[in-house]
């Protein structure tokens, strides 16, 4: 292992389970276990998978007007969150690009934030720089975070924490599991029903082993996490969204509340509100290539006349789709469903078409 890599609280468990470890966002992380990515992916779609996401950044933000303060940095409606309710939003920059995407929960007397591992230091510095004077940021570096995802997740978790099976989607609550004080949300990054469980880091292995002892639960690595989120049409920061893409280009208008669209008051609001009114010049779309060859990130997209109209930002093999799938940006005129696109893979032109995301129907709990 590279000495400069950090480890999560579950590192020794991954090694003991025979995981193949790779560097990711500065951490030594499991890309797959002996079962392999295809089996892990299918297991998550059919039963339940356990993911270590402890590398992600967790933090508490406090202050008298903390929701209003955070709203200056994100376009999501934070002030409108009920206590216990969670929302997906983005940190935007002054140019209307995306610095990171994150989850924000109203915890009553504070906000709870979960941000991407690769962006967390920059995100926390960004918060301090812009709203440090009116809010107090507490970084929870010692906490672990695991996700339990799949159609069996609710049945499994409610055996250890009665009642969590009826938790509404995108809510969070304090729940004790085997005596461990956890903070559980009904959310995830796979398109399946499931939970994300934040807990004291020193108890991470204990909780993971408790869940892995369940017949329906297998450990799932970052490889399957990526294929699951791609099939679910979810963005990966640094690939499908970055400092150059706006939330509107990325198709994330749904995450911007009506009041925020009208009032603005967040970094980059000028571009974002203009794009809402006038439509962006390019859009993120789902792409279904003909044939079997995967079109990877960076693949050039042309129209049938050969003119360049975009680029693939995530692409590979969808195990549930059982074929190649991709997402990318194309000019607005080419973004309609069923539009024919050409992908250039190893010098050859492959036919493909725009499809409505997601590739695999989302299976969230709707009560």
């Amino acid at each position, binding site marked *: 292992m590279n000495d400069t890599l950090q480890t999560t609280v579950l590192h020794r468990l991954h090694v003991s389970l025979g995981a193949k470890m790779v560097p990711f966002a500065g951490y030594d992380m499991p*890309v797959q276990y002996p079962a*392999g990515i295809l089996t892990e992916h299918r297991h998550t779609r059919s039963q339940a998978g356990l993911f270590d996401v402890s590398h992600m950044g967790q933090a508490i933000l406090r202050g008298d007007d903390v929701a209003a303060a955070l709203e200056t940095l994100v376009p999501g409606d934070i002030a409108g969150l009920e206590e216990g309710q969670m929302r997906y939003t983005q940190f935007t920059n002054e140019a209307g690009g995306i610095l990171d995407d994150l989850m924000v929960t109203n915890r009553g007397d504070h906000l709870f934030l979960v941000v991407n591992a690769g962006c967390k230091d920059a995100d926390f510095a960004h918060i301090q720089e812009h709203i440090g004077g009116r809010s107090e940021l507490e970084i929870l570096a010692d906490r672990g975070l695991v996700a339990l995802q799949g159609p069996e997740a609710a049945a499994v978790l409610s055996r250890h924490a009665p009642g969590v099976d009826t938790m509404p989607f995108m809510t969070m609550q304090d729940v004790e599991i085997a005596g461990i004080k956890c903070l559980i949300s009904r959310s995830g990054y796979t398109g399946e029903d499931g939970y994300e469980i934040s807990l004291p880091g020193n108890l991470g292995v204990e909780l993971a082993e408790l869940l892995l002892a369940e017949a329906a639960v297998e450990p799932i690595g970052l490889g399957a996490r990526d294929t699951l989120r791609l099939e679910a049409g979810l963005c990966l920061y640094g690939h499908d969204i970055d400092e150059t893409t706006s939330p509107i280009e990325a198709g994330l208008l749904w995450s911007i509340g009506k009041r925020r669209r009208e009032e603005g008051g967040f970094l980059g609001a000028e571009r974002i509100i203009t794009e809402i009114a006038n439509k962006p010049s390019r859009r993120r779309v789902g792409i279904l290539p003909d044939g*079997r060859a995967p079109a990877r990130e960076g693949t050039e997209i042309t129209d049938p006349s050969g003119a360049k109209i975009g680029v693939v930002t995530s692409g590979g*093999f969808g*195990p549930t789709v059982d074929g190649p799938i991709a997402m990318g940006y194309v000019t607005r005129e080419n973004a309609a469903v069923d539009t024919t696109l050409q992908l250039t893979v*190893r010098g050859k032109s492959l036919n493909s078409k725009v499809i409505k995301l997601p590739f695999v129907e989302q299976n969230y709990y709707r009560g």
Partner: protein
Amino acid sequence: MATVKFTEEHEWIALDGDVGTVGISDYAQNQLGDVVYVEVPEAGASFNKGEEAAVVESVKAASEVYAPADGEIVEANKDLEDNPGAVNSDAQGAGWFYKIKLNNVADIDGLMDEDAYKAYVAELD
């Protein structure tokens, strides 16, 4: 019994007369993980040693398969188009990629035999 040799890029070649059957080693398939797509060359195509003759794609990435010696393709394993997983389940058997008629069979003399290859990959781990 055919002579089997290995390259440093983890291809194997089993020589029968002047025709070599080429694939990737069991070590290589294990490093790649689940194979989801294979692109094999057309019969009649010629390659020089070290040129990209085929492509193997796992869930995570695409990798090139190089020609281990100069020659002309006489047959490709089209079954891999529908069953790329054969590369994982039987890398040095049913998971073969192509058969190449070598211009000069002595070209593979310098490649590793099975014992030398085993020692080579042991150093990599």
